[in-house]
């Protein structure tokens, strides 16, 4: 009886754990695909965070982006996490990380090794270090090449949302 109860409990954990974590395959994008997402003409505020699991400050700030993603569900704010993890470490690095940190915000993996060809197209001021974040609405764009805190992201969104 005890064993049966335990199995039911474990099954319950498995299901609830599965719901909160990423359960879809991470889309792997080339820059030409991602670029469209950096210039969307709509009245939404887009929060695009460039990060990687091997980057300490990125790991620190990621929960703040997740929080924003969960808080702004009713408003026109869309968070996208663009991972620059090595594609070869998708299953050993990125997926387990997203699961254990219960990240539900959309994640894509940018597989474009020649960064020199696309860094300037994200923002000409970006030198290439991670983390980096683009927050935009229409043609109003804010770009940060540093670790952000909740207040930074919140403040940027609020400064754009009523424009």
């Amino acid at each position, binding site marked *: 009886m005890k064993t049966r109860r335990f199995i039911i409990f474990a099954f319950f954990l498995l299901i609830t754990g599965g719901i909160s974590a990423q359960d879809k395959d991470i889309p792997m994008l080339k820059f030409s695909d991602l670029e469209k997402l950096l210039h969307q003409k709509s009245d939404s505020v887009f929060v695009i965070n460039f990060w*990687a699991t*091997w*980057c*300490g*400050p990125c790991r620190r700030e990621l929960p703040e982006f997740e929080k924003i993603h969960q808080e702004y569900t009713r408003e026109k704010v869309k968070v996208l996490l663009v991972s*620059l993890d*090595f*594609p*070869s470490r998708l299953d050993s690095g990125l997926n387990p990380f997203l699961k254990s940190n219960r990240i539900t915000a959309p994640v894509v993996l940018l597989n474009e*090794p*020649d*960064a*020199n*060809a696309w*860094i*300037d197209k994200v923002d000409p001021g*970006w*030198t*290439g*270090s*991670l983390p980096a974040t683009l927050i935009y609405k229409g043609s109003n764009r804010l770009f940060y*090449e*540093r*670790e952000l805190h909740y207040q930074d992201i919140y403040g940027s969104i609020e400064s754009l949302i009523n424009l």
Partner: protein
Amino acid sequence: MKTILSIVYLFAAAHLLAGEGLKVGDKAADFKLKNVDGKYVSLVDFPQAKGFVIVFTCNTCPYAKAYQNRFIALDKEYKAKGFPVIAINANDPAVEPGDSYEAMVTRYNEKKYSFPYLFDQKQEVFRIYGATKTPHTFLLEKNEKEELIVKYIGAVDDNYQDASAVKQAYLKNAINALLSNREPDPNSTKAIGCGVKQKT
């Protein structure tokens, strides 16, 4: 007059603090940093060199690790031609313990680096150069006055994932250009890297 001077000074200081760093065409400063063998190394110690490949790198960043063997190959090929590699770790070990001086010595011995691996313990040199990440390379060439002029800044090549799939060897092309008395084109490129670790 004094006020104007101090305002000018303030602007200059702000400019330095903003970490503008070196640009192509600028004169690069020499430095004196501790090597993994305990001895201090300066660029003036290499009178035969035509220039230098200064690489800000570290032990821990996956991008830096992906380029370790390529730096060894680069040094082997270009030291004899007058452009030795000088690697510098500027990460603060208090933030990233894997980049301590002791860990540098271990990595140097494991990888059998053919070039100096220097520790920018005070985190001054990377700021003067304007390195923002690892790896970040600066190609310097000596002019007729023995000054060090920045000729190229940026990426090693266009494929961190696979050395055998490189199409544009930016840094190599830049050195080859200097060796045949041409200016590198492009003279600056960008790459993804890990930010230099500093206390916040």
